[in-house]
């Protein structure tokens, strides 16, 4: 090794964020996400109607007029249900991705740090997890555990652990050979301190960028499970569940399926736009583009 770097390279996180902000696509994505997050978080105050209150006199009202996005077969206001439904989508996907990021990240870092046969074995297990189609794995886990919010988080997290382990492992393997890690070892730092104090800050941006992109996948999987009927139980509104209910009335009231579908599409799109921008900003290969 010709050059000796004793200090860890500066975290690229801030630089990347500044760069991402100047990209119009990323900014648009962030705006979409922000609107959805605000309307979901403040749904109790912002929603014009109670999302579960039935109003038989006003069932299947077309969009426009008193009910901006119309009403469903029980006379419930679609806009209010969408705002409340966003809470489920966001809670489940944020919870699942946070769990997968922590568990998968730790597995990948430890595996890459220890190396050798242990690493081979762990990666083989991850490969097996990867060989299940994620929707099928999620479907089966939720069906077996029961359709509840916590189980949805568990199921979706389970499908995302292996990719996070992979993304954390590769840079750990490279970093553990670096001089600053060797210096830490020479100073008698514990493995835990080296891993979490010195290696973790260097791989964090990569893992976080992947987290944003996987958040989009998690939203999609949650919506898909709800659409199949394995989401949080009614009458709690979920976007996937609303799409399913609307699909059953598609001939009389197509907007019932269209609006929640657009909501899912917009949130996934917004997250993808933000994730793409962050990835481009942190990817050294693309930095000069």
């Amino acid at each position: 090794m010709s050059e000796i770097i004793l200090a860890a390279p500066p975290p690229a996180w801030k630089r990347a964020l500044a760069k991402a902000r100047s990209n119009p696509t990323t900014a648009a994505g962030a705006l979409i996400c922000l609107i959805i997050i605000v309307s979901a978080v403040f749904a109790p105050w912002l929603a014009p109607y109670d999302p579960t209150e039935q109003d038989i006199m006003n069932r299947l009202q077309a969009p426009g007029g008193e009910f901006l996005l119309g009403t469903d077969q029980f006379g419930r206001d679609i806009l209010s249900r969408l705002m409340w439904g966003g809470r489920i989508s966001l809670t489940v996907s944020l919870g699942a991705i946070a769990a997968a990021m922590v568990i998968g990240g730790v597995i990948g870092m430890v595996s890459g740090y220890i190396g050798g046969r242990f690493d081979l074995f762990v990666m083989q297990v991850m490969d097996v997890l990867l060989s299940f189609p994620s929707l099928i794995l999620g479907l089966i886990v939720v069906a077996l555990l029961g359709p509840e919010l916590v189980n949805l988080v568990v199921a979706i997290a389970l499908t995302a652990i292996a990719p996070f382990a992979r993304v954390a492992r590769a840079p750990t393997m490279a970093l553990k050979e670096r001089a600053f890690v060797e210096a830490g070892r020479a100073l008698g730092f514990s493995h835990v301190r080296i891993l979490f104090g010195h290696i973790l800050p260097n791989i964090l941006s990569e893992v976080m960028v992947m987290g944003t992109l996987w958040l989009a996948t998690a939203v999609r999987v949650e919506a898909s499970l709800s659409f199949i009927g394995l989401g949080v139980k009614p009458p709690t509104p979920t976007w996937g569940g609303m799409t399913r209910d609307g699909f059953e009335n598609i001939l009389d009231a197509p907007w019932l399926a269209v609006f929640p579908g657009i909501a899912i599409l917009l949130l996934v799109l917004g997250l993808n736009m933000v994730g793409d921008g962050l990835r481009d900003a942190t990817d050294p290969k693309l930095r000069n583009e």
Partner: protein
Amino acid sequence: MIHFIARRLLAAVPTLLAVLTLVFIIVRIVPGDPALVILGDQATPEAAAALRTRLGLDRSLWAQYFSFIGDALQGDFGVSMVTGRSIMAEVGAVLPHTIDLTLAAMVFGVAVGVPVGIWAALHRNGVIDVMARLISLIGLSFPVFVSGIFLLLAFALHWRIFPVIGSANLDDYGDRLHKLILPAIALGLVMAAYITRVTRSAMLQALSEDYIRTARAKGVPWRRVVWVHGLRNASIPIVTVVGLYVGILLGNSVLTEIVFNRPGLGKIIVGALNQRDYTMLQGLMVIYCFLIVVVNLVTDLLYGVLDPRVKSA
């Protein structure tokens, strides 16, 4: 080449065994007694015990495990706990529908994604490139049931070009294709978007290589440089994505089958979930994973064909 194939085949064996073990464990750790689930809560203890014996659930876990692995390796997944019919027969009856759908979606994804990706790469940062990137970003954000419903509303309910119900007669190829088009587009949309992106970046990479300059300097026509020299070298990442994506297509085919009301593995799996048909679930999971292991194997072999350097690695 034979040596290469043999090595890849051998490498797939431990994965398959591990998958079988994992499936066995997942199905066993589920709370609830399957005998009571099938018979209902009012079942007498004798009836439940008799059913457990018939299903083999009274044997030790090890005995169940080894007979499961042994049978599975012979392609025998037993009978459905609910209907009592052979799982292979039930799956075999609908598998062609799911394979039709998955293959058609894959063809759509490649047929759209590769040319658009190349087109975008050739007009880098121009209007076409920006449009292609934006459209592919939107395309890959579509949950398959949403794109399915939108297509259904537009082309089956509004314009009535395609049928609403997708159950086709397998012997009538015209009918089969006609009923396949909308579901295949719905399912293949995300794949087309991914392939567009990967093709674009792989082509940009390939076209910046020295051998492309050499080929142009020798006077090879530009069209040939792009489609032969460029694409051939960009093909490895494209094949990788296609291979990885088949698993997602198989998973998403469940949703497509629900939206378009097509028969297939998706319908069986949703039915088995509702009825807690453990043996059926076990069999389906193994079949899904088997399909994916096969796809990975084919992908690996294709690498060998596309890039001779892979074989000696």
